């Protein structure tokens, strides 16, 4: 399946990209995708424990199963306001 990944803030710097598509085996989880992202962008490893993920605008845990066409946000720690 194909999922779209969006990078924000420090994650965007680490990936040097605003977003890209990953092709994953069926029944992959968000955690599996996270490992793929770190493989593709070693600079991402340093922040992988502090990052959270969204799927289709919902914050999710890494156990969450992915589906075809899901949009995944890679969200570093926030400091809004």
């Amino acid at each position: 399946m194909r999922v779209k990944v969006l990078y924000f803030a420090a994650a965007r710097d680490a990936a040097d990209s605003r977003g890209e598509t990953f092709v994953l085996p069926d029944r992959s989880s968000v955690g599996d995708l996270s490992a793929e992202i770190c493989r593709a962008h070693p600079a991402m490893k340093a922040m992988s424990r502090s990052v959270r993920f969204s799927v289709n605008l919902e914050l999710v845990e890494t156990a969450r199963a992915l589906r075809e066409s899901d949009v995944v946000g890679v969200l570093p720690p926030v400091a809004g306001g």
Partner: protein
Amino acid sequence: MWACSRPWRVGRMRGIQMITRRPIDPAVVLASVSDDSAGGTVMFLGTVRNRSHGKAVAGLEYDVYREMAEKSMQAIEQSVRKRWRVKKVAMVHRYGALKVGEVSVAVAVSSEHRADAFRACRYAIDTIKGSLPLWKRERLEGGVESWVKGTRIRR
């Protein structure tokens, strides 16, 4: 001094909730929560400070996951309404480049009695700070830039 007064009540059905690149006008945010049955309105404005950890700040740049942040704002309003009796709730967060003194975030809550408005406004801004997918890049005088260390995003 009061001569520049303008109508700040416009009778919208609900408070503004938005992520915007344009400057935030506090009067418009207030107008959006006006309600004839409200006796109290509390507004919080976050502004860009000229110093951060002892260093002179030139400006900030905000990155945002806009669609998700607007959805989070709606969730915060629902959560406010479950906890307190409020009339209208407005939340506006700016992104892009901001200068010192500019408003980065505005929250306004109107309610029948002021205790509810104070508590709801405080809760909303605290929640915005921890749960909105929004990131702050600090530009110090001299040119050094870095993402401000934050907390792991929570629901």
